[in-house]
């Protein structure tokens, strides 16, 4: 693991706020020259502190009106390999998030769908047929009230 100083943290904070900033813009925001900022970003990327950048799209403008969070319990613990379940569920394109968790469920999934009928199709044909799947609980997203990152 690499050492991260206050300047690195300032760079990461600027990028948390706007992931589209380039080295010049980050440097201006925190008062550092472009080459120095660029070298630090490069170093954070090489150390995998910055794992990558993704594009944020407006899902509803693209026709995806429904987001459902699923809690999944595996049915036959021990018999089913977690790897089989994980590989199969991660391959479903509508599944954006697969998290192995400790608690009342074994996995948390986030599924995007065009509408409720589309979600039902994904649930029946893709999720319920996964190897080892047991209890599934669905909670439909109504609204995002806060989307932030922890202060670093």
């Amino acid at each position, binding site marked *: *693991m690499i050492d*991260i100083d206050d300047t690195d*943290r300032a760079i*990461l904070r600027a*990028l*948390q706020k*706007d*992931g*589209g900033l380039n080295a010049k813009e980050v440097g201006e925001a925190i008062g550092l020259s472009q080459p120095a900022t660029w070298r630090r970003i490069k170093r954070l990327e090489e*150390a*995998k*502190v*910055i*794992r*990558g*950048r*993704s*594009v*944020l*799209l*407006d*899902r509803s*403008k*693209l026709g*995806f009106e429904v987001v459902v*969070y699923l*809690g999944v319990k595996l049915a036959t613990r021990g018999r089913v390999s977690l790897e089989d379940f*994980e590989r199969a*569920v*991660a391959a479903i*394109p*509508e*599944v*954006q*998030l*697969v*998290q*192995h*968790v*400790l*608690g*009342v*469920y074994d996995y*948390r999934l986030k599924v*995007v769908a065009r509408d409720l009928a589309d979600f039902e199709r994904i649930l029946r044909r893709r999720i319920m047929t996964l190897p080892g799947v047991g209890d599934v*609980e*669905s*909670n439909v*997203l*109504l*609204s*995002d*009230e*806060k*989307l*932030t*990152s*922890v*202060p*670093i």
Partner: protein
Amino acid sequence: MQIDATDRRLLRLLQDDASQSVSELAAKAGMSTAPCWRRLEKLEAAGIIIGRKVDIDYSALGFTVLVFLRITLDKTHANAMDEFVREARNIPEVETIQTLLGRVDIRMDVRARDLTHYQEIYRTRILRLPHMLDLEALMLVSEVKNTESLPL
């Protein structure tokens, strides 16, 4: 805004790798740079491309614990939802607050340095939030998949 097959292709390529330049993108999409750039401008102006997000490894910054809280509220109180969300927003370690339709009303992501830190947030901030009837916690063990990509 109407989106055609070329727009979709550009969005798919961007979802695969958001850090590529316009000329790289244009080459992959089999078009020249100028029209590619114009299409991206249009998609951004229409709010379909919202921005870029940097994926930060929080464990490298000392945050090793992520807990998902699932909360049931006392709905006999008329403003339970609003009052709860208003107070919960002020907790910096609460990264996400979402309202849901299903067995639980609210879900929140809480990021902490370690379990001691989490315990402190839980006792001094979370448990003091108003109108909670029930609270369930899931702790992240491992992330199998985490993408913003839509199945375009």
